[in-house]
Structures are given as C-alpha cells and as structure tokens.
C-alpha cells in the first residue's frame, strides 16, 4: 500500500530554488499609521509610528514601520501565489487542502520607512508530514527575503505552513 502523502512533484522540483522577486507598492506614512492603529487597538500606538516631529528626535531620524509591517498587502495587481497551487500540497483525491499558519521566525535588518519600495523573493526549504488532531497534516517550511530599494536586507522569514 502506498503511504499517504500530500507532497507534490511541483514541490520536489521547487525545493531550494529562489522564485522570481516581486515588488510591493511604495510604503506611505498612512500605511504605517493604520497598521500601528490596528495592531495596538484600542490603545494609541507609539509616536514613532505616526508623529514625524517626534520620530525625527529618535535613533531612526524619522517615522519607521513596526517590524511586523507588511508592505505587500493591497497590491493593485494580484500576484499568483507561488506560481502553482501544487506548491502548497495536494490531496490524492484532488480535494483542496485547508491552510493554516504554523508559525514563523523573522530576523530584521534595516527598518522600513515611508517611501521605501520593498521587494521579496521566496523558496521552499523543506517539509514533513504526520498524523495530527486534524488528520493527516503536511508542514511546509519556506523562506522569504525582503530587500529595500537600496538592496539592504529588511527581513528574512522562515515560516511553517500547515495543510490538512
């Protein structure tokens, strides 16, 4: 009997290969302010995220984004996610898998600022499968790297996608 697996040939072919980079819209101070207001809600976010006069007096010399800020939200043109749906695993019967966020480790370089244009590239690192609370489950680890317009490293993320 063949062992159940959600791993696809597309995943095996893509492992370790950096994909084509893609670029986020320029970051604005409004993007940063709204992000901070959402993640600090219902309290007022720190001034470094919205008060330019205050921010000018800090080590950053101006407004910076919270480290977890995502400049890739709300693109005008949709990027197809990872190019192929097969990269996220597939059930042998063809029914779609449910995806969940298993966790991540981010390492931060330079902060993101208003006006920055961040580009990303990603690759599939590895995967494993096991029987869990939600039945047969596939864990996929990927790496995503962000750089700004000056090619400075902004963030490296290793994330675990859960598919069941």
């Amino acid at each position, binding site marked *: 009997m063949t062992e159940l697996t959600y791993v696809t040939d597309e995943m095996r072919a893509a492992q370790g290969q950096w994909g084509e980079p893609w670029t986020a819209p320029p970051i604005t101070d409004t*993007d940063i302010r*709204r*992000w901070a*207001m*959402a*993640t*600090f*809600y*219902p309290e007022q976010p*720190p001034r*470094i995220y919205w008060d330019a006069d205050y921010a000018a007096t*800090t*080590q*950053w010399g101006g407004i910076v984004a*919270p*480290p*977890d800020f*995502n400049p890739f*939200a*709300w693109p005008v043109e949709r990027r197809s996610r990872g190019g192929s749906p097969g990269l996220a695993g597939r059930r042998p019967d063809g029914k779609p898998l*449910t995806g*969940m*966020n*298993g*966790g*991540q*480790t*981010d*390492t*931060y370089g330079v902060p993101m600022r208003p006006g920055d244009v961040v580009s990303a590239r990603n690759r599939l690192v590895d995967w494993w499968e096991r029987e869990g609370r*939600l039945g047969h489950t596939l864990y996929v680890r990927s790496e995503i790297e962000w750089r700004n317009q000056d090619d400075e490293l902004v963030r490296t993320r*290793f994330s*675990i996608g859960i598919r069941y």
Partner: protein
Amino acid sequence: MSVNFENVNVGDTLPKWSRKTSFAEWNRYAAVNEEFVPFHMDDEAGRRAGNEQGAFGMGNLRYAYIVNALHAWIGDTGVVREVGCQYRAINQKDDVLTVIGEVTDKRTEDGEQRVYLDINVVNQDGGATCPGHAVVALP
C-alpha cells in the same frame, strides 16, 4: 521608561502586554494586512475549518502583539532583531491574550548588545498559545 543592556539581567520578565480579542481587533487587522480569510471573519467558516467555537483570530496578529510588547519594553532606543513563534492553540473570540517573556541570555555579538528572551502569548485561562523567542539589541 525603557531598559538598557547594563540593567537587564537573566531571569528578568517582560512587562505584561494584553489585549482582549474579538472581531473589532481581527477585522482591523484583516483590513491592514488584507487578511480576509473566511475562518477569521465568519463563525460558520470557522466551524467548517475545524474550530467548533466558530471564527478564530489570526496568528499574525498574535505575532504583532509580541512585537508590540517588545517595543513597549525597549522603547525607541532599542531594536527588535528577531522574533519567532509557533501557533500552538487557537485564539478564540473574546480571549484576553497576554504577551509574557523572560530574559534567557545577554551578550555582545556583531557589534550589538543583544538580549535573548523566551516568549509566549497566554490566554485568560493561562493556556500558552504561542511559544517563541525574541532577540533585541539595547543601548
């Protein structure tokens, strides 16, 4: 008042940082992160995804809470260098999530004074939902 490298010691705890989470918090986060996933917004979709209590919160928002708790501690003179966590339990509606942390090491590396912490996000029942770690650089 923010901390500095000299006065931080192994065993020190992160000041607790809490939020009660429900649709008011999740929908705002969905709006800025464009994370309109049905199981975060709709009880029926949450149940279909395997959570009997219905819609549930975003892992990314818990991650943001960890970052925010670190910022509240280190202020604008420190730098968040690394944060990692695993999403082990679901963030149910009306949970009160509290970020906790403890300093496990401090050392100078790559020209920075770095402090290492174990981190978690616990709910009102003391359930640990999000074990992880963080590294901050301090003046």
